[in-house]
């Protein structure tokens, strides 16, 4: 009975403490699960951080691994979601020679059509930023590659869920216990 491997987004709400990333990554490592992308930042709750981690695993694996995260003392709650259950984005940045902007008018069309933002322009280079799904950023990269990209970087996925996650309520309940 082989289960489907899916792209899943794992959200982990945590205390903002040193060393936690170590614990979390160790849990993936022990189970030989490769992390596709990882973002960590503050969350909507003050003093609470959120990890957003994308992995390709089965839902059974996801359930077990979420249990292991929740077991960590400093993890408040962990969840996993399918793509359909989330709204998600990535962001890519492209550094390109300024000269090209004038020599290759096609670039200007690409910028316009792809809704890409110009972050900065100077004499040597200009920088573009594009947020969206992975494939949108990748398609832009393909288009620009023809002309030459000096630097490219893409962020990990950030995601919010369509359903609510009751972390705030949980914390309130604790504080009033």
């Amino acid at each position: 009975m082989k289960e489907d491997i899916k792209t899943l987004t794992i959200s982990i709400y945590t205390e903002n403490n040193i060393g936690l990333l170590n614990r979390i990554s160790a849990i993936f490592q022990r189970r030989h699960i490769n992390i596709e992308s990882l973002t960590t930042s503050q969350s909507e709750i003050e003093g609470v951080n959120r990890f957003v981690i994308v992995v390709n695993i089965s839902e059974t694996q996801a359930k077990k691994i979420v249990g292991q995260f929740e077991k960590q003392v400093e993890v408040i709650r962990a969840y996993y979601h399918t793509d359909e259950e989330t709204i998600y984005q990535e962001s890519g940045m492209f550094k390109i020679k300024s000269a090209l902007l004038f020599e290759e008018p096609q670039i200007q069309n690409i910028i316009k059509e792809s809704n890409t933002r110009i972050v900065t322009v100077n004499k040597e280079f200009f920088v573009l930023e594009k947020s969206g799904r992975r494939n949108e950023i990748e398609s832009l990269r393909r288009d620009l590659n023809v002309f030459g990209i000096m630097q490219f970087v893409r962020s990990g996925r950030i995601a919010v869920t369509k359903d609510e996650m009751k972390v705030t309520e949980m914390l309130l309940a604790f504080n009033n216990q």
Partner: protein
Amino acid sequence: MDTQTVKKTKEVAAKTERITGSEAIIRCLIEEGVDILYGYPGGAIMPVYDELYKYQDKIHHVLTRHEQGATHAAQGYARISGKVGVAMATSGPGATNLITGIADAQIDSTPMVCITGQVFSHLLGSDAFQETDIVGISTPVTKWNHQVTKASEIPEVLAKAFYIAKSGRPGPVLVDITKDAQVSEFDFKYEKCTGIRSYIPVPKTNPEAVKAAAELINAAKKPMIVWGQGVILGEAEKELKAVIEKAGIPSAWTILGASALPTSHPLNIGMVGMHGNYAPNKLTNECDVLIAIGMRFDDRVTGSLDTYAKQAKVIHFDIDPAEIDKNVKTDVAVIGDSKDSLAKLLPLLNKNSHESWLQEFKDLYEVEYEKVIKNDISPTKEGLTMGEVLKQINIETKGNAAIVSDVGQHQMIACRYADFNITKSNITSGGLGTMGFALPAAIGAKMAAPEREVVAIIGDGGYQMTIQELGTIFQQQVPVKIVVLNNEFLGMVRQWQQLFFDKRYASTEMTNPNFVAIAEGYYIKARKVVKREELADAVKEMIASKESYFLEVCVEKEDNVFPMIPSGASVSDVRLS
């Protein structure tokens, strides 16, 4: 730190006092009720040792001969007392020497707090003398760990450490404290930790789940219980017994669950797992409801998961939600503290007895007795067996001793044949299988429960892994009884070589030293037995001794432990020979 630890305000605000970080460490330990700690000094922890000197009347420090010994002693202390064991070491090699014991405590859920010294905080990350990243190294084997770089953090972090180590599913915690934090002064006050917002140690028992469990049990024709250490950690022995007796359920135990119910109880059907008893292993694949209590379906217990109890509805009682469905899919999960869950289950159970089902266990016991047990405990061949040594110990201690076993054949024999009348009497390294565990663990156990007879059962291999702790026994005058079952082999590995590697005994034969002379070198009374006629008398003399005593028994070199489930096989394929 302050956002996450909720402190219930005490009626009287704690007074503050200006003291150093190291004095604060000792004061915190005293506040947590620590009266014994095991450790080994060195540069980065010296200020704390200096304070210990001052507080000698309040805290007894036991100098082990190796830091690994300190952790195992702390584990032995914790396992027999249910309290938190404490171990301390210096930075670098001192700290890394703790790792085996910490890993052992983690997998066996033993409450332990380890304190390590660390280099000055301005040197962190600079490859300073005796600097290791012990927080990084210990992360995967601790329940929680933390590095303190400021004296003022010490009380809160240590309070948290003790709370985390002992609450919920217990485990080891490591606190690493830089030398500057030890020597600088701050205003000390101590408040115990009573809660951490991101941590729910004991999930509430869901009454619906208890009801569902009761219904399944009441309807069962062939129910079987397998309990584990969760019962002992949750101090639910009375509740377990009540449930077993009311519902008349044949009940088996995992290696770490041993002693929670007296061996002689009529519904106690023995040990499950790789070298467990024949009946409970075999009938796991025939019961209709399998009730797992405070156990985690370790692979040594289940054998092949593909064939494990497939016919049964499974009820799983556990405090740790991450254990549910981890290895075995459950039909009813009762998450919570075992004492509480079993107490709630009891009134919902129908009074029952499953005579013919219980008879099936008794019949298979007879088969095991004829084929295995008889030859183990009442052998007719010339060579001594490990089983008969255990039998003699049972006779002399009347089943009231705490048995501390090491890892190997003798461990399985000890767990199979020791009589346990009293709970928390089986102290062994279950999950990690750490050779070298028993000698130092016995020290800790005896110091925590001086009124109890503590007998360590050790193989000639494992004994030599921590043999230096004889020095600790001698210096501390701990009256533990040490039995080395000497087969001149790494017996358990040799057994595997015999059965699965065509008798190629690669590096398992041991040429041993004069163990009696070594014990005597540490001024410990010692005796060696090579003939059956001497055994009873020697064991009697050992148990009668008021001091520590070393007994070497030369046993048959190539005996095997049966029953056995070969690894990866099904529990019902348990072999008797």
